[in-house]
């Protein structure tokens, strides 16, 4: 039984990681209607930037903050230079962000090399707790905790702050918000930066868990897209549920049905879409 419990916890930890990156993707999608296929590469960039900081003797937490800051800045640059020209044009968005993901991924390879790397678990969290006869790494519990905190933060921002209200309004009716004198362009840049920062954050937190290697960006992008679809486009709450579900099913699947584990995840997506075509918590897309 303890094998099941350990795997469940691991699944939740991976789920929280997927939630963190999917949240950024879904917020950008929901607020700005932009499909950002470069999101996985921003995740990768966050991890590699943190790696550089940590290699220069910086402490994990500081590196984390700086990485998030850097990826958010990247987000601002990308939005101002490229993304804002393709609002409303879905095909152009897909082509642009997909191409961006290749360019960014190759830049990462060029700057940091192709060897596999890991981010070290910060000293405070480097250890294991014993559950009966197994040890469970503390870091994974931390990831679960962090995911919950992030969910709390998002809820607070959305429900209790003015910016949250503006964003909710912007999702519902962009023109009206603009007519009220609120600088929508400014808000959008901010949202994109926030999403990018979230991607970078999950990259740093995911580093000690899944490692850093070429190709990690496309793998995580596929998973986060599935999470966003299952959860509902634009709904971060849906992403939370979807991500944890996927994390658990994927991890348990790899243990008990190893040859079917990817299939099970796609099956889940199919089932959800059949029952609720807009995702678990999605709304009718206008």
């Amino acid at each position, binding site marked *: 039984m303890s094998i099941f419990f350990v795997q469940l916890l691991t699944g939740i930890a991976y789920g929280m990681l997927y939630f963190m990156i999917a949240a950024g993707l879904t917020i950008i999608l929901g607020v700005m209607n932009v499909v950002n296929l470069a999101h996985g590469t921003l995740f990768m960039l966050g991890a590699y930037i943190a790696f550089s900081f940590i290699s220069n003797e910086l402490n994990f937490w500081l590196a984390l903050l700086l990485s998030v800051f850097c990826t958010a800045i990247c987000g601002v640059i990308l939005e101002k230079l*490229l993304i804002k020209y393709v609002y409303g044009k879905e095909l152009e968005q897909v082509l642009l962000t997909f191409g961006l993901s290749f360019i960014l991924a190759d830049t990462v390879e060029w700057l940091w090399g192709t060897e596999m790397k*890991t981010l070290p678990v910060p000293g405070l969290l480097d250890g294991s707790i014993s559950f009966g006869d197994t040890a469970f790494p503390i870091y994974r519990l931390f990831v679960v905790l962090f995911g919950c905190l992030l969910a709390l933060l998002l809820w607070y921002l959305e429900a209790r702050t003015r910016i949250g209200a503006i964003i909710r309004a912007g999702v519902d009716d962009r023109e009206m918000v603009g007519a009220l004198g609120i600088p929508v362009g400014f808000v959008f840049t901010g949202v994109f930066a926030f999403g990018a920062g979230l991607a970078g954050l999950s990259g740093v937190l995911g580093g000690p868990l899944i490692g850093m290697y070429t190709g990690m960006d496309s793998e995580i992008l596929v998973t986060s897209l599935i999470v966003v679809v299952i959860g509902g486009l634009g709904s971060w709450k849906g992403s939370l549920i979807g991500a944890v579900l996927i994390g658990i099913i994927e991890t348990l699947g790899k243990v008990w049905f190893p040859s079917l584990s990817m299939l099970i995840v796609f099956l889940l997506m199919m089932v959800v879409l059949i029952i609720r075509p807009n995702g678990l918590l999605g709304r009718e897309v206008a």
Partner: protein
Amino acid sequence: MKKLRRFKASGLIIIALLLFITGCSQTRSSSGNGKKGGESDTIKIGFILSQTGTFAPLSDGILNGFKLYLEEHDGKLGGKKVQIKVEDDEANPQVALRKYRQLVHSEKVDILVGPISSSVVYALRDEVEKDKIVLIDANAAGDDLAWSKKSDYVYRTSFSNWQNGSSAAKYLANNIGKKAVVMAPDYPAGKEVIRAFKEAFKAAGGEVVNELYPKLDTNDFAPYLQETAALEPDLIYAFFTGSDGIRFVTQYKEFGLQGKIPLGGALEFGDELITQPTGEAAEGIIAGINYSPNLDNEINKKFVKAYQQKYNKLPNIFSVEGYDSATILDKAITEAGSTESAKLIKILKGISFDSPRGPITIDPETNNPIQNFYIAVNRYQNNAIVPEVIETVEKVTMPKTSPFE
């Protein structure tokens, strides 16, 4: 519309930038007018390597090693100037065949080096036989290349899965324990390494009480580690490469097995590619390696120094594979006096040379390198893992025909 014009302008700028960047990268691989045939002054060497995905660092290592040798020898092999053309097979046999035809029929390369993946080398082997062109296998470790798929035109400078799996078995059985659990990913290389280990371990009096084969790209090895720990074996022997290897080693520590159950590994667990990112977690692993930057011989000392100076990092087994491929070609072309395949293969069969790994002889029965393996324990010193050699297994070979058919 101003916005549209601005978008078109930035679009044109981006296209121009991209063309500029791709133009720059073309200078990496040179194209030229080297004549095919034996007696000209330049040789064209074609590389078929996997430069995308997790094989990328292996390809980089091989190219770095090969280029270092060229630099040390004035850009020449066998007295002839060398031009290199590198193609990416994306670890896909179909793509590899396409690139092969490009290299051999369009570019008219004289000799081929590569590939990384065994599935690709099996696909290339028949073509190479047909076109009568020499292929130096710088990495692919599939056993069948020495047995049912042996070819007079293919010579391996890396090692075989058999050698990798069997080298440490006797030491482990005699010094650590006779009851082992084995683990490897569920794919041909994993199965081949484990079956070689099992044969050698049994021959030394050991018993494999369980075999586990997690899928490639497993996130979490906890269930396998737990199941293993419950059996209370004397040791665990594992073969994992790439990010799987890093995750396995890290989780071995995270789930509390490091220090409790001895971990024996194939050469990957003692190689820089895995020990560098895993650091402390790799401490204590006993691996049967065939190379370490700390090997104490003159050639290696010079090699490591030159490699560090040129590339600013330590060489790993893949760097040596590249370096040795250049060494073997240099020697063969010099002795044959030409790059004609018929003359080269006469020399390549049974050729001997000195490598940073130690002395190497190509076994004429298998076209596989007979080389030393070293039983090494990973020690953590000065923030790095240093494999400490405790025993040398000299002249490790492989059987002339498959013992499994």
